[in-house]
């Protein structure tokens, strides 16, 4: 049996059993986390453009887009949902691979589970396995694939989404069907990192999800596939990565879950920014209201911080998500870092700009990726420091359930006022739900808030 077939058999076996309790909980939390980020991003210009595209060129609107008051056809819905879940860089991260698996998995779950009227338990299981397959594929080719320049969240998305979609459309799938879906999805990868800083970055998990849904829709037909589409000599892994470790794809599948290492972002920006932002927030009481006393701010950080988020002068919210310097400045000025700190207006504000100009990165090769130290020199000679050994939201210091719910409330209530508690409760009740109806009803229960001026998009 080749590794594509092996994976297909493993998926079929895992899908035939209930999720282990810790995995079921992580799946629910991951689902809530990305549902909340999807709703929170509903007014983003990229989401608005995707909705316009789906409304103008798509057909048969059967899948709701939470937070927008609209529905789209399954393929355009998957694109838009995956995009929305990821666009604010506020979703989830599997630290070993830096994949953000929830976006594509949620998109496929909605795009297929809702029209098929899947049970809540089916949706969560399909979501979990869709995430797991993305992460397994990613682990198999990490770090070589990302280092080559691929956006791994995009390139792995079709595989996971195809699995999610197949499991929802065919609750007891034959391994051959899963293998065909994987082979089709493998030929639909996407995502080059040049897209970072543009709307296309968030398009990657969205279109990846749509491709996975398409692959799963094609799979039941008389489709001939190449032998070992994933592991073959010129297959998915060989072409997309300079090196890969095949054993990682299926080792202990169903017993050991990469999904348990998924983490939820506490801040809407690149994950390597987070420890420095933690430190800045800790230091805020020392400078609050007296920003002119700040003389110099040093951020001692892992080399990836400079490489991925080293922009010292962002001018837009999108650029600021890749600027640790901005995140630190925002933490020092506002004492709280969330979506409002990443609007164009806040990024360009004089007080933030002024503090940003006094912040610099100091690369420390011995630092762990989830740690940072921020040193603030004041004009009177005092120095305050905050040392973060593990960022909030990291594996060592994951968000608590209360923190996750607080994040969800802030995101959801901003777009669907008053709906957060009902949505949180509906997700909690999913294991016992016999259809998606209640979840869909809570999402559509309140009217979307008007689009704020700070999310102004570009239009032709």
């Amino acid at each position, binding site marked *: 049996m080749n590794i594509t077939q092996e994976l297909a058999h493993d998926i079929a076996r895992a899908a035939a059993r209930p999720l282990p309790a810790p995995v079921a909980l992580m799946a629910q939390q991951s689902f809530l986390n990305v549902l909340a980020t999807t709703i929170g991003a509903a007014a983003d*210009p990229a989401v*608005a*453009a*995707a909705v*316009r*595209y789906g409304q*103008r*060129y*798509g*057909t*048969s609107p059967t899948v709701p887009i939470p937070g927008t008051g609209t529905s789209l*056809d*399954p*393929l*355009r819905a998957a694109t838009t949902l995956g995009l929305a879940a990821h666009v604010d860089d506020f979703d989830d991260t599997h630290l070993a691979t830096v994949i953000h698996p929830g976006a594509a998995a949620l998109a496929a779950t909605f795009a297929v589970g809702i029209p098929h009227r899947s049970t809540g338990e089916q949706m969560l299981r399909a979501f979990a396995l869709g995430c797991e397959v993305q992460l397994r594929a990613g682990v198999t080719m990490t770090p070589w694939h990302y280092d*080559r*320049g*691929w956006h791994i969240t*995009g390139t792995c998305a079709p595989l996971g989404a195809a699995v999610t979609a197949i499991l929802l459309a065919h609750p007891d799938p034959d391994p051959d069907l899963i293998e065909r879906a994987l*082979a*089709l999805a*493998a*030929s*639909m*990868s*996407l*995502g*080059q*990192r*040049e*897209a*970072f*800083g*543009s*709307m*296309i970055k968030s*398009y*990657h998990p969205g*279109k990846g999800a749509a491709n996975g*849904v*398409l692959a799963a*829709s*094609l799979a039941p*037909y*008389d*489709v*001939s*596939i*190449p032998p070992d*589409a994933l592991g*073959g*000599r*010129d*297959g998915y892994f*060989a*072409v997309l990565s300079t090196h890969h470790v095949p054993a990682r794809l299926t080792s202990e599948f169903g017993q050991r879950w990469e999904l348990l290492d998924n983490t939820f972002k506490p801040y809407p920006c690149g994950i390597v920014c987070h420890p420095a932002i933690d430190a800045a927030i800790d230091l805020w009481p020392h400078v609050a209201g007296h920003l002119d006393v700040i003389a110099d701010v040093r951020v001692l950080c892992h080399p990836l911080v400079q490489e991925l988020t080293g922009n010292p002068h962002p001018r837009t919210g999108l650029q600021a998500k890749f600027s640790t310097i901005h995140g630190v400045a925002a933490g020092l000025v506002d004492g709280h870092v969330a979506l409002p700190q990443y609007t164009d207006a806040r990024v360009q504000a004089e007080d933030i700009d002024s503090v940003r100009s006094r912040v610099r990165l100091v690369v420390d090769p011995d630092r762990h990726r989830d740690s940072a130290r921020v040193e603030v020199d004041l004009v009177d000679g005092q120095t305050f420091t905050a040392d973060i050994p593990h960022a909030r939201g990291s594996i060592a210091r994951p968000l608590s359930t209360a923190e996750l719910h607080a994040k969800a409330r802030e995101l959801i209530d901003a777009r669907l006022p008053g709906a957060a508690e009902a949505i949180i409760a509906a997700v909690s009740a999913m294991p016992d739900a016999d259809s998606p109806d209640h979840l869909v009803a809570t999402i559509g229960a309140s009217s979307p808030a008007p689009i704020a001026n700070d999310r102004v*998009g*570009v*239009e*032709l």
Partner: protein
Amino acid sequence: MNLTTERLAEFAATWPFDAVPEPVIRRVTARLAVTAGLAVMGCWDSPVDVALNVAHSLTEGPGVAMLGREDRLGLPDAPLALATSSLYAASRLGDAGSAGPFDAAVVAAVLTTGQATGAAGNEILAALALANEIATRLEQALAPELRASGWASGCVSSRLGAAAGAGRLLGLDAPHMVWAFGIAATQAAGFSAADGTTVGFLSRAKAASDGVEAAAMASLGFHGSALPIEGRRGLAAVLTPAVDDLTPLTDGLGEQWRVLDLSDMGDIRPHVTAPHTLAAVEHLATAPDLKALLEGSLVDAASA
């Protein structure tokens, strides 16, 4: 600074239709005739049925027509089915058509978008010329390295060519064409290991839909990176790192037409049994729209 994407985008968006040389128009017309004829011959083949069944199951409603069939699909979905029909029919011709028209996806993107925009025949041919010029340049510059790395034929060129053709017909200006190229470039996909399988056909054909979507999304304000082809982590760097000179992509753009390096597919034409389709293409330059081509294709398919 390398401005490959910007120059190609400006070419696709602004080159005057009446400045496309006549020999180029003749070449793309000849290729279009054969490709369209193949599409009619293949319109009832199994992979096309698969693509259409799936498209209908996921989306319903008015849209654009296939060649040879009454089915109407949404603009983003139709190109996949149309390109599949050309490619699969070519494969059935054996040696004569074994490679399949490399510009099948570009043709599909232009014909479907042209229907949606009501383009006149001469606009269709000119868009095809510009799109194929870009696709051919990409293919010539990058294909050897792509093939050596296991990528499928046309995985890059078809997508950007499709985006260029669709974008021109949708009226994209140069900056928006750059966005379209970015959305298309990031979707380069498909492995040569799948050649000859249904996965291979659908993957090559999907380039058409991906390109149309890229252009359509760009037209609605979905913006992309500035350097999707030549950027540090762009298409060329990631897929063809051994290609360090991208100047062939833009050298002599508008003066030297690489599309003339493509054959007129005269070796395949005798095998194409779609006389009404071929005739409609021959008169496309003076046609007000694609209606005659679509009607001719239905007649051919019915008599096959």
